[in-house]
C-alpha cells in the first residue's frame, strides 16, 4: 500500500519540480521575478478561500474525467472521448433536472441526477466499446469521431429546443439544487466549489476498490496487461472492453454534475470545453491510480486557476506550457521513480 502511494505521488512531485524550473526560465524571459509570480500564483489559488474554492471546483471535474481515462487505460483502452461523455452526462442530468418538480430536496434528486449523468456518459462511451468488441474498431478513432458527433448533437438540441432566447443555455433548474461549499463554510463565498467534490472523492475511492479488490477489477487489469492471458484465464475480453468503455463514459458523465447542477444550475453549450482532454493528462500524471488521479487533478486545477491569477504580469498561456511540461516530465520520470520506490521498499 505504501509503495502504491509513493508510486502515485512521486511522479507528480518530480514533475512539479521540473515544471517550476522551466517556469522560472519563462518568467525571467518576460522580465518578471519568478518569486513574485509564484507568490501571486499561490496567493490566487491556495492563498485565499475563494481561489482555493475555485481550485477545488476544477479539481472535481478533472477527477471524474481523469478517473474515466485511467480506468480505460487500466483495461488497455485509450478513451479520447471523455470530452463528449462529460457533456452528454451534464446534458442528461440537466434534462432530468428540468423535468423534475420544483422544490424537491437535493437528497431526493441527487441519485436521479447521478443515474442520468452516468447514463449519458455510458451511452457515449459504450458505443465505441461495443464497436471494438464486436468489429474490432479502434477506440481511439471512434471516440474522437464521436466527440464531434455528440457535441454537435447536444448543441443542436440545446439551440433548437432548450435554450433561453439570447443565451446558449437552458432554463434554470429549480429541483434539488446541490449545495455549494460556501453554504457550509462562509469563506468560500463566490466560488463554484460544491458538494460534487465529495462525490468525486468517494468515486475515486470506489474506483480504487473496484480495480484492486474485486474480481471484475482483477479481470479488467489482466485484460489491459495481457489480453491473451486474460482470455486464457476465462475472461471474456470483448465483454471487458465494452463494459469498461461504458463505465469510463459513466465516470466522465457524472463529472457533468459539477457544472450543470453544482455550479450554474443549467446546461450550457460547450461547458466541458477542455476538461475531457485534460483528463488524459490527469490520468497519465496520476499513473492511472485513483489516488494519483485525485492528486494530479488538484495539481492541474491549481495551475489553471493560477494562470488566471498571474495573467496581469505574465501571459496566462505560460500555464498551458507548464501543464505540458508536467506531462512530459511525468512520462519521462516514471520508470526512474518506480525504480526508486522499488529499491526503497526492498531496503
Amino acid at each position, binding site marked *: 500500500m505504501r509503495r502504491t502511494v509513493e508510486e502515485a505521488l512521486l511522479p507528480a512531485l518530480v514533475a512539479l519540480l521540473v515544471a517550476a524550473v522551466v517556469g522560472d526560465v519563462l518568467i525571467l524571459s518576460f522580465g518578471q521575478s519568478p518569486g513574485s509570480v509564484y507568490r501571486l500564483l499561490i496567493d490566487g489559488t491556495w492563498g485565499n478561500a475563494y481561489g482555493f474554492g475555485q481550485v477545488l471546483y476544477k479539481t472535481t471535474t478533472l477527477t471524474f474525467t481523469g478517473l474515466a481515462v485511467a480506468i480505460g487505460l487500466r483495461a488497455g483502452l485509450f478513451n479520447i472521448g471523455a470530452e463528449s461523455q462529460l457533456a452528454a452526462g451534464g446534458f442528461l442530468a440537466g434534462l432530468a433536472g428540468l423535468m423534475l418538480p420544483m422544490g424537491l430536496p437535493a437528497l431526493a434528486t441527487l441519485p436521479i441526477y447521478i443515474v442520468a449523468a452516468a447514463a449519458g456518459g455510458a451511452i457515449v462511451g459504450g458505443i465505441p466499446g461495443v464497436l471494438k468488441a464486436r468489429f474490432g474498431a479502434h477506440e481511439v478513432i471512434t471516440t474522437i469521431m464521436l466527440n464531434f458527433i455528440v457535441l454537435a448533437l447536444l448543441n443542436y438540441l440545446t439551440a433548437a429546443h432548450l435554450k433561453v432566447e439570447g443565451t446558449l443555455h437552458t432554463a434554470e433548474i429549480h429541483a434539488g439544487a446541490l449545495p455549494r461549499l460556501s453554504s457550509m463554510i462562509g469563506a468560500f463565498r463566490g466560488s463554484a466549489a460544491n458538494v460534487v467534490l465529495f462525490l468525486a472523492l468517494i468515486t475515486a475511492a470506489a474506483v480504487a476498490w473496484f480495480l484492486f*479488490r*474485486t*474480481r*471484475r*477489477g*482483477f*479481470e479488467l*487489469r*489482466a485484460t489491459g*496487461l*495481457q489480453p*491473451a*492471458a*486474460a*482470455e*486464457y*484465464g*476465462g475472461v*471474456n475480453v470483448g465483454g471487458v472492453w465494452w463494459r469498461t468503455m461504458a463505465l469510463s463514459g459513466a465516470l466522465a458523465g457524472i463529472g457533468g454534475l459539477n457544472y450543470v447542477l453544482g455550479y450554474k444550475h443549467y446546461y450550457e453549450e460547450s461547458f466541458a470545453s477542455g476538461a475531457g482532454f485534460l483528463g488524459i493528462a490527469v490520468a497519465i500524471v496520476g499513473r492511472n491510480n485513483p489516488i494519483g488521479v485525485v492528486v494530479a487533478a488538484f495539481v492541474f486545477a491549481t495551475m489553471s486557476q493560477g494562470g488566471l491569477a498571474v495573467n496581469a504580469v505574465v501571459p496566462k498561456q505560460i500555464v498551458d506550457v507548464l501543464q505540458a511540461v508536467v506531462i512530459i516530465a511525468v512520462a519521462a520520470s516514471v520508470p526512474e521513480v518506480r525504480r526508486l520506490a*522499488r*529499491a526503497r*521498499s*526492498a531496503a
Partner: protein
Amino acid sequence: MSSVESSASAPIAIRLSDIYKSFGPVNANRGASIQVARGEIHALVGENGAGKSTLMRILGGMYAPDAGKMEVNGRDVTGWTTAEAIDAGVGMVHQHFMLVPTLTVAENMMLGREPTSRGQLDSARVAREVTELSKRTGLAVHPQRKVADLSVGEAQRVEILKTLYRGAKILILDEPTAVLSPPEIDELWRVLRGMRERGETIVLITHKLDEVMEISDTITVMRHGQTIAQLTTTETTPAAIAKAMVGRDVQLATHYGETSSRSLELPSASLLEVRDLVVDGPRRASAVDGVGFSIAPGEILGIAGVEGNGQTELLEALAGLRPVRSGSTSVAGRDITALSVKSRGDAGLSHIPEDRHARGLVLDYTIAENLILGQQHRFTTGVRLDNDAIIDNARRQIDAFDIRPAVPSVPARALSGGNQQKIVIAREMSRGFQVLLAAQPTRGVDVGAIEFIHARLRETRNAGKAILLVSADLAEVLALSDRIAVMYGGKFAAVLNRRDASEEVLGPYMTGAEHAA
C-alpha cells in the same frame, strides 16, 4: 568436485571473478565466477534461477555488477556498457529474439549501423555482405525475406548472423536449442564447431546435459547465484554435472516405465473424446483437418510432430481459445464444444498453455495473483476477491511446487523461466479436473524442474486423469506417453502404442514420408 584450469596454452578470453548482483530482494549472483579460454565452446549450466542469464547479461553490458571484476581479453572491463561490449566483439543471442518482424533479414542486419553510399542506404552492400557471411559460417538465410515469415529456427540463425555481422568474436547463446527441432540443433552444432575452428569463443547457456556433453569443451556449473564447479567435459559425466547443478543425485534417465495404472484391456469410458475436429489457423484454413481420438482415465496420449503441423491450433480449440469449424469435444461424457473457457474449466478441463509469457501468466501480476488466474471466480466472496484465501493458496502452492522466490507478492516477471512454469503447473494441477491439456510443459525448463514436472504428470495419470501431451521434444513424448499420435499437416499420420514406438519408427511419420492406413 574437480576444479580444472583451462588449458594453459590458449589465452583467456573471458574472466569474471566474484560477481555480485541483486535485484531488490533477489540475489541473482552471489560471488559467481567464470573463465573461458579463447577458441573454446564453454557451457554455462545450472538450474533455473541459478543466475546464469544474469551473469551473461553482466558480461554483455546490460547490467552493471554490484561487486566483482570483469576482464575480456585481459582488459579490465568491469561495468561496461552494451555499446562497449559490442565494440569489443562480445555479442549475445537472447532466448527471445530481438528482431523487427516487418523488416527483411538484411534490414534487420543493418539496423543500428546502416551503411550509406552518397547519402542513401546501401542495401545492396548489406545483402552482399550477409550472403558472404552466411556462406562462410554455413548459416543459411535469405537476405530479402521478411523476418515475420521465418520459422523459429531461421529467425535464430538470423539472430546469430546479426551478432556475427557486427563483429562478435565472443558469442553468448542463451538456451539456443529451446526452440529448435532435432535437425536444426545438429545444424547449429555444425555452425558453432566451425566458429570454434576459426578461433571464436562461444558461451552456451543451457541446462540440457546431452548438449553439454556433445558440444562443449569446458563447463561452469552455477547454483543459487554461485559458481559450484568448473569442469572439463571429457573428464566428467552427465551424472556428475547434474549432481553439481541440483546439489543431490538426480534420476536422469527419463525412460518410459510401465507404471500406468491403466491395464491393457479396452478402457470403459474415455474422459476426453474428440470427433472429426476441423479448426482454422491464423495462416491457413483447416490447420487441424479432421482429427479424432479419445483418452481413457489414467492414460497419457502424446502428440509428436514437427511444430506448425496443427498442434497449437488443436490445443487452443480444445481449450476454447479458438473457434472450431466442425467436430465435437466432450469431457467425461459432457459435450463442451460450445462452452466458454471458464465453463470448460468448471467442466473439468485444465490447460498448461504452450506459451507461458503470452498466455500462461500475466507477467506483471504477482505469484499469488497468477496462481488464481482462470479460477478467480472461486476466490471471490460476493464481488470481492478473497485476499486471505489467495495468499493462503499461494503459500500452499509455493510450498508444494517449490516456487522460488517463495514470496507471494513478487511479480511473475521477476522469476526465472522454470519457476514461472512451476506457477502455471501448480495452478493447473491444483484445480479439480478430469482432463489435462499439457502443451510443451517443460519448454525452457532445467533438469531438476523437468524431473519434477514429469513426476507430477505421471502422478496425475496414475490418479486416473486423462492427459493430452503435446511436445516438440520427442524424447519427452516417448518418456511419458502411453499412446503416441504423430501429427502432420493437420492430421494424425499415425497412432501407436508406446511399446511399438521409437524415434526410428516415428521419424518417417513426422516428416510426412509415411501415413498410417
